[in-house]
Structures are given as C-alpha cells and as structure tokens.
C-alpha cells in the first residue's frame, strides 16, 4: 500500500465532493481545497475553472477583490469553501470568537465573506482539519454565517458536506442534520463520535474514506505541488518538499 500525507487524503476526498462543477472559487488561506481543485483540473483537462483569491501571478480578478462576491451574487460560482473556528450540528459557522461577543475569550481572524458566500455559492464544502469537541460544538458562540435560512429568505445554496481530519459528513438539507459518510483510514466511527460535540446521523457500518490512488499521488506530488507552491509556499514545503 502506498503511503500518503493526511493533506493528500483530504485533497482527494474534497476533489470527489467537488465532482461536476464549472467554477470553483477559493478564498483565504485554503491550500488543501486549492490542491483538490487542481487535482480535478489535472484529471479532466482543465475543468473546473478555479479562481484563487490570493493568486500572486495572473490573479483571476480584474475588478479588485469585490469581483468574487459579484460573481457569486450572480450565480457564477458553483463551489466555495468555508472553515470555522467553531462549526455546529446546524452547519452554522463561527469565525469570530468564543465567549459572549463582543467580550470574546479567544479571538479569531473574522468572518471574511462567509455571511454572503454561504448564501450565494451554489454549494459550500465546510473544511476544518482539527476534529475535536472544541471545534465541532453543539452550538456556535457566534454565527458568522448560518447553515440554513427560513423560507422567504433569499438563499441560492448552502452546505454540501463537512470534511475534517477524521471524517467526511454530508449535509441533509431537509433534516438540517449532518450524516457521517466515511471515516478516514486509521480512524474509527467511535473515535469520531468521541470527538464530535454535536449529534449527527450514522449507519451501523461506516465506510472508510477512499485513500488517494497512485495516479492521484503522482499528480499531487508533481505538477500540483509545483502550482500550489506559487501561492502557498509554506504549505507546499511542509507537505511535498520536506
């Protein structure tokens, strides 16, 4: 069996979740989603289009950073990625801080464009490597962006899935609940249960997340590592150029 880095497993899992899409946008510091999208592009002759907000050379935006939000507002963004310092079982995300805002205990960077992109992108894949009760909480302390909206509130899209360092969950829109889809190799359903602070649906037999194939690893370690290094040099050094 080929060995692989955890980041490579996550990139290949996210690539499968992106699946068929015309345009994927990546926001602040997200090298793993960017790698996932580059993997798809390498496998399918350049589809989907990838717009990297932080691209240093040949940045895709010519109207400034606001162009991402204008594109999403019009429906031209199929898939976007959001993280969360806290994520709860209703798919609400908190990027601001813990405690009783504005008197925060731990302060995080801030909401970025989440309060808009979570509504406007057709699908959002939630991604956070740390899988712990600290991150996956019963209820977020601050809602940067809500996982669902009442009828009558304009909303084009919402969460599709949650990917962590231990597992992949799908989002069930009607039930407003996550469902455990797979656990990563080396991890168990019991370990996921132990480290998740919210309730979710699961089946008796939970499949293992498919590891990256030899062909995927060749792409990730070759052309994709070189491309990712242009915009995420620390990440590329850590994962591929050790």
């Amino acid at each position, binding site marked *: 069996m080929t060995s692989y880095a955890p980041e490579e497993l996550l990139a290949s899992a996210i690539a499968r979740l992106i699946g068929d899409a015309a345009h994927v946008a990546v926001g*602040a*510091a997200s090298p793993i989603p960017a790698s996932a999208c580059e993997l798809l592009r390498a496998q399918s002759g350049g589809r989907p289009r990838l717009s990297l*907000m*932080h691209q*240093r*050379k040949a*940045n895709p*935006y*010519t*109207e*400034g*950073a*606001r162009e991402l*939000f204008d594109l999403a*507002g019009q429906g031209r963004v199929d898939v976007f990625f959001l993280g969360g310092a806290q994520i709860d079982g209703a798919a609400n995300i908190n*990027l*601001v*801080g813990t405690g009783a*805002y*504005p*008197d*925060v*205990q*731990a*302060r*995080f*960077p*801030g*909401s*970025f*464009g*989440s*309060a*808009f*992109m*979570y*509504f*406007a992108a057709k699908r959002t894949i939630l991604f956070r490597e740390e899988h712990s009760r600290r991150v996956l909480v019963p209820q977020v302390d*601050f*809602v*940067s*962006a*809500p996982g669902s*909206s*009442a009828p*009558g*509130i*304009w*909303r084009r899209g919402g969460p599709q899935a949650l990917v962590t360092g231990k597992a992949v969950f799908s989002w069930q829109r009607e039930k407003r609940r996550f469902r455990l889809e797979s656990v990563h190799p080396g991890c168990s359903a019991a370990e996921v249960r132990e480290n998740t602070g919210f309730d979710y649906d699961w089946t008796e037999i939970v499949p293992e997340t498919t590891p990256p194939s030899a062909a995927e690893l060749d792409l990730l370690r070759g052309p994709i590592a070189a491309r990712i290094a242009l915009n*995420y*040099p*620390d*990440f590329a050094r850590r994962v591929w150029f050790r």
Partner: protein
Amino acid sequence: MSLPANETRFLQDADALAAAIPDGAFVALPPDYSLVAMEAVRALVRRGARNLRLLGVPQLGLCADLLIGAGCVDEIETSAVSLGEAGLAPRFTAAAQSGALKVKDATCPLVHGGLQAAEKGVPFMPSRGVIGSDLLRHRSDWRTIQNPLSQAADPIVVARAIEPDVALFHARWADRAGNVWIGRRRELATIAHASRSCYVTYEELRDGDMLEDELLAPGLVTSVYVTGVAPAPRGAWPLGVIDVYPIDDAHLAHYAKAARTPAGFERYLDDFVRPGRAAGLGDRAAHR
C-alpha cells in the same frame, strides 16, 4: 457628503506623507495581497500616530497588526485580520481579547458595497445574504428592509455608505500629472473614490501623463482623487508589488513569531521600523 477635486501634492517621502494623516483619522487600507503602503505605515508608527480608526478593504494583515501593536489604533472595522499562511495576527488578537481594541466586525461584500455607495454619493447599498448572521445584530449601520420593488415579501440587507477620511495605499507608478497606477487592484480605486483624501506611496515616478497611454490608463487612479504622493522604493516590503518584488514570506513568518510577545514586538519595531538603528538597517537589508 461633498468631496474635493484634488491637485496632487508631491511630498518628499513616506514620513512627510504620514505627517499629513491626522490623529483620529478613519483610514482605509488594503489587504496584504493588494498594494499596501508599508513604508507609510512604518512612518505612522514612527510619528506616534494616535486614535486611528482602520477600515479593512475588506480585510487586514501586517499593516494593521503593526499599527495596533504600536498603540496607534482605537478601533477597526474589518472582515478579518490575518497574516495568511503566517497565521494569526498576534497584536490584533491580544488587543481584541484584552478589550483594548474595539472591533467592528464586517463581511467582505458589505465593505465593498458600503464603499461603492460612497463612490456613487448614495446613502446605502443593498446586499443579498447576511440575514441570520450575528454580525447583523451588532451593526447599527446595517438594516434589513423589504425590497421596495417587490410585491412579495423579500427581506434584504442594506449597509450604510462608508466614507473614510483617508485612503492609504502603494502604487507601481505615479506620474507628474498626479495619477497613480494600481493595475488590476481595483479595490484601491474604490477606496480612493470613496475617501475624503487619498495618500499614495509609489515605487517610481514616470515623466508625462499616463492618461495619454491607452494601455496604462485603465489601471489608473486619476489625480482628481489623489491628495498627495510620495516616493517609497520597495515601499510595500515585506509585502509585494507584482512583477517588481514578491511577498517576503520568510520575513512575515519572522514577524508572526517575534510579535507573539509585547517585548518581541518592541524589538521588531527597533529592528525594522524605528529610525537610526544601524544594526536594524543591516538586518533589514539582509531580509531583503
């Protein structure tokens, strides 16, 4: 709101430019991936600027962390403060957690929208999304209204126009007519258009008028918006200017580590920000 048609002033250097930005000003700044006037930010620290309010367009990085750590800032309005791959912005995080810094949390499209409203001289800009976010509960300048053009119930958020006192950024070129070239970084044009005054440092001065060059003209902020310019070669360092010099990732990592403690931050200021430190200038040359 009524804003002037400027006659651009040519200032001697970044310190003269920082002297023109008054204490208490509401200053709009670009994110680290755009063109940040880092030398002017260092000059603001050197002159001991106080009570500034910063606007992140739409987010902030190193420049805000330096100004916050140096005690120049009372309040920031921003979608986020981060050093990107180098991690959390340490002085921002400490000041926000201690309550020393007031943070007006925003989300990117409403920062852009508020500035676009000011560009047009209208009182607000509507935006989709945001309803259900706790941001809305803490922003008295954002409201949810019924879409006035819809018969059906259709709530929509509006954000009040944002009118900064000062737009501050760096440019690849200025010319003798007072135009500055920012290329594709059009968020800088938006803040220049929306602000009462606009100060720009530049890499190089070009002779003539860039408006006469059809290829350069679309990348300009024209002099009607520009209050003052000053030369600052490598003035965005340790951030980058596309095709001139890249972001100095090693220096950003060094800063992120140094600024974890107040003492480490003070040493950083001595080494890289405050004048007359021969050893520091040597270090700085080495970091370039």
